[in-house]
């Protein structure tokens, strides 16, 4: 059996039944990391020693008969945007190179409490801004399915690690598609939860009103399990929903017969690659085969989703990233200066990469006196319209579906000089964040050897339902997330 291509639930079972130890599991993944990391570069920092120590400690607790958590000893990758106490958290930025947080993010606390063992911090576009992981200060991640291609982004490191067998599962974050698009491009499952379902405390903010942490896994079952670990109210996050999260795992029964799915016209026709469209249509057929009635639906406001997103997200980012100024922590310019404003300028000019600076400037402009109403306020109105369009759709449909990404993985460098084309990579995923609803990307086969993602969207807090649809599809599609890497 190849442990590194086993799911997390499977590994948890093996450890529980004493067929393997946590140390063995961790060593298997560390060996795999050693083998493929030079090619793939999924991690910014691998926490090998800490992982070995923790695994050994968990093993001794387990052999003493202690309860070490539901996923005791199961390895995990964590996107480097989540604060980990005592271990570097860089957000893929020079600004935070070597920065060691003083506290754990709530989700990190929760996966630790469940007994998981962190293997390392996964690579990402700087401050989660990008769709290819090429914007990382620490170098790009490559797609395990084709090393000439990008893994998507911004959670490209998390997606590639899971796809390449460098971690059984991973935590990512999604602001405009940053979990789902890389999941699609790497052939794994990725879920963006309802806004407020998962705590953002300790998630380094990109766009506060859009960000969510979510699972990136090899199967829908693992996705339900990891969501179960991280979901639920957190008093440290005022926007966290004050309701207990259900047991997602037991809800997965594949019973979808009689459900209604809407095919979003605006997200599944123009600008979608033929190969992607072909896989998408085949998956819709499979869904109908499961007894789900599928019908096209038009959500006209989606046309403006991308524009609204690229005003709201940069506006919030321009404020969120103001704290990186060289005064209290992180990078500070070496340039001697007796003027604080010069110090700020030099620090931020050298500490941030090009895409981050572009978005800070866009956002600053959108919030400026005289432009606020024309840009930021207008974008918020579009947001309201998108929420309304979705709301109307839920009157007629249980779920909505579309391709996750308009294309399969593209070549490294292909879109780096053309930000607008790059931004279009998120055209199918962005409306979901604007509306705060949950959506999942399920691998639905290959197009010319590259994975294609199928997006399932649902009303607020319908995670159980959309995962069940994906679970049913997973059973009939039979996709095996194993790239020809070796």
């Amino acid at each position, binding site marked *: 059996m190849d442990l590194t291509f086993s799911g997390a639930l499977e590994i948890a079972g093996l450890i529980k039944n004493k067929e393997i130890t946590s140390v063995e599991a961790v060593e298997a993944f560390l060996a795999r990391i050693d083998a493929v990391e030079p090619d793939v570069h999924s991690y910014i920092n691998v926490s090998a020693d800490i992982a070995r120590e923790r695994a050994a400690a968990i093993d001794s607790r387990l052999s003493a008969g202690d309860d070490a958590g539901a996923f005791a000893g199961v390895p995990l990758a964590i996107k480097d945007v989540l604060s980990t106490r005592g271990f570097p958290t860089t957000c893929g930025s020079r600004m935070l190179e070597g*920065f060691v947080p003083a506290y754990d993010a709530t989700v990190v606390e929760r996966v630790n409490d469940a007994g998981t063992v962190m293997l390392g911090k996964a690579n990402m576009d700087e401050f989660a801004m990008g769709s290819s992981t090429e914007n990382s200060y620490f170098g790009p991640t490559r797609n395990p399915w084709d090393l000439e291609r990008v893994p998507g982004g911004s959670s490209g490191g998390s997606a590639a690690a899971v796809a390449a067998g460098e971690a059984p599962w991973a935590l990512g974050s999604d602001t405009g598609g940053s979990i789902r698009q890389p999941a699609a491009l790497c052939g794994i499952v990725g879920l963006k939860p309802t806004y407020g379902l998962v705590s953002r405390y300790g998630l380094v903010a990109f766009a506060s009103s859009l960000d969510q942490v979510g699972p990136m896994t090899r199967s829908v079952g693992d996705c339900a399990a990891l969501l179960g670990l991280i979901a639920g109210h957190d008093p440290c996050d005022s926007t966290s929903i004050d309701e207990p999260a259900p047991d997602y795992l037991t809800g997965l029964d594949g019973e979808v017969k009689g459900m209604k799915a809407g095919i979003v016209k605006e997200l599944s026709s123009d600008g979608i690659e033929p190969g992607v469209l072909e896989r998408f249509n085949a998956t819709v057929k499979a869904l109908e085969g499961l007894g789900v009635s599928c019908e096209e639906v038009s959500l006209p406001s989606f046309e403006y989703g991308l524009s609204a997103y690229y005003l709201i997200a940069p506006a919030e980012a321009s404020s969120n990233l103001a704290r990186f100024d060289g005064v209290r922590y992180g990078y500070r310019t070496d340039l001697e200066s007796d003027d604080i404003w010069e110090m700020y300028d030099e620090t931020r000019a050298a500490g941030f990469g090009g895409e981050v600076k572009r978005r800070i400037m866009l956002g600053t402009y959108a919030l*400026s006196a005289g432009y606020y109403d024309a840009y930021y306020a207008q974008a918020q109105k579009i947001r309201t319209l998108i929420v309304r369009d979705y709301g109307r759709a839920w009157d007629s449909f249980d779920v909505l579906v579309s391709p996750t990404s308009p294309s399969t993985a593209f070549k490294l460098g292909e879109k780096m000089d053309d930000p607008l084309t790059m931004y279009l990579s998120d055209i199918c995923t962005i409306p979901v964040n604007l509306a705060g609803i949950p959506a999942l990307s399920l691998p639905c086969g290959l197009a010319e050897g590259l994975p294609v993602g199928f997006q399932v969207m649902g009303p607020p807090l319908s995670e159980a339902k959309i995962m069940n649809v994906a679970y049913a599809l997973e059973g009939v599609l039979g996709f095996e997330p194993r790239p020809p890497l070796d």
Partner: protein
Amino acid sequence: MEFETIIGLEIHAELNTASKMFCGCPTAFGGAPNTSTCPICLGHPGVLPVANREAVADTILLGLALNCKITPRSIFHRKNYFYPDMPKNFQISQYDIPLTADGWLEVEMEGNNRRVGITRVHLEEDTGKSVHIGESGRIHGADFSLEDFNRAGIPLAEIVTEPDLRSPEEARAFMQLLRATLEYLQISDCKMEEGSLRCDANISIAVDGAMGTKVEIKNMNSFRSLFRALSYEDERQRFAIKQGETLVQETRHWDDAAGVTHPLRSKEEAFDYRYFPEPDLVPIEPDPAWVEELRGRLPELPMERLRRFREQYGLSDEIAVMLTSEKALADYFERAVETGQDPVELAKWIAGDLVALLKDAVVPIQSCPLEPRGLGELVALVAQKVISGKMAKEVLKEAFDTGKGPKEIVEAKGLSQIADAGELDAVVDEVIAANPEAAEDMRGGKEQALKFLMGQVMKKTRGQANPEMASDLIKKKLT
């Protein structure tokens, strides 16, 4: 040309909540630098704010005391600007939908009432404190700057008035009343010198009813400097207008030592704050039942108490204002009144000697060594003519210094006045016999002679003779 001074104030009061506005750090004043801090108030990556319910309650309470409407759904905004004492480089504040708005506070000025409109009372977080090392003393040209974030994140209530004040006197009186109001509500320490109460002002001169150019004054750190700065600026502007000069809309800094205002460099002021709704916080929607519960907690406010003191106890304006300016002082007075002594006498003793003693010893009235009961005892001793007013001053001082009761002091020192007519009668006879010349002058109607003889009586009794009785006796015997 008819001139009218137009003043509006913007006041910041640090709320004395147990913890900071958006984190759990304590708010205690004066700790070692950066000891009351955590990742949240230091603006570390990934942290989130959670609003302090106690601070919201305090602000609502203040809004109610200032006759404001409580906003059913108010929101926080981010005010964006870079400064090293701002951990996040934005301040969480409120913008177009404050917690409370549209109220008033009535100030009495020499019998005239001035109702000052309160535009808004909102809630925000304080910044840290910078110390700039170097010749300039300012951030420009400093060798380096030190930052203390203990204050960063302490809740601040911002109170903005309408431009309803018409003189520096009125502005000062308003500030004093507002300070007293905050103090009565027990929501702020109200120390202008320590910065827990801060005030900026807008001042302009209307000429023949036409609005003038508004100038903002900053850095007024006491009631005195508020009054001096506004008086200076009032005169500067009137003079400029008379000279035909054009005033500039600007922010000016009050230099207390030099007694002048001067313009701030525009670079420090030219901010576009790019306000936008704080996405990390949810709107505040105070439950109406909670607001009513808070309303029920409102104490008798300074102006109500002042009016009651005048009517119920017959106190003068000046003394009533003084006693009610501090809740604990007014409480002390009312507890002293419970001893049954004359309120006017009690009030005089408190407003005069006692307050002076407290001030010298830098002791708050709450820890006054002389209990209100003791003050009643002192006033009773004077009323019963056991001791003179002059002796009472000394007894008060000793009671204050030692914590002993006035009665105890009088007895221990044998200080009681000789009010026994027989005993005093003998002394007066002795004095007359020993000073025949003065006695003759007295018979001849010389005022000087009475004073001389009184002096001799006092000398003989070591000051313990009841002066009234002694003087009556001399007069009776020598006229």
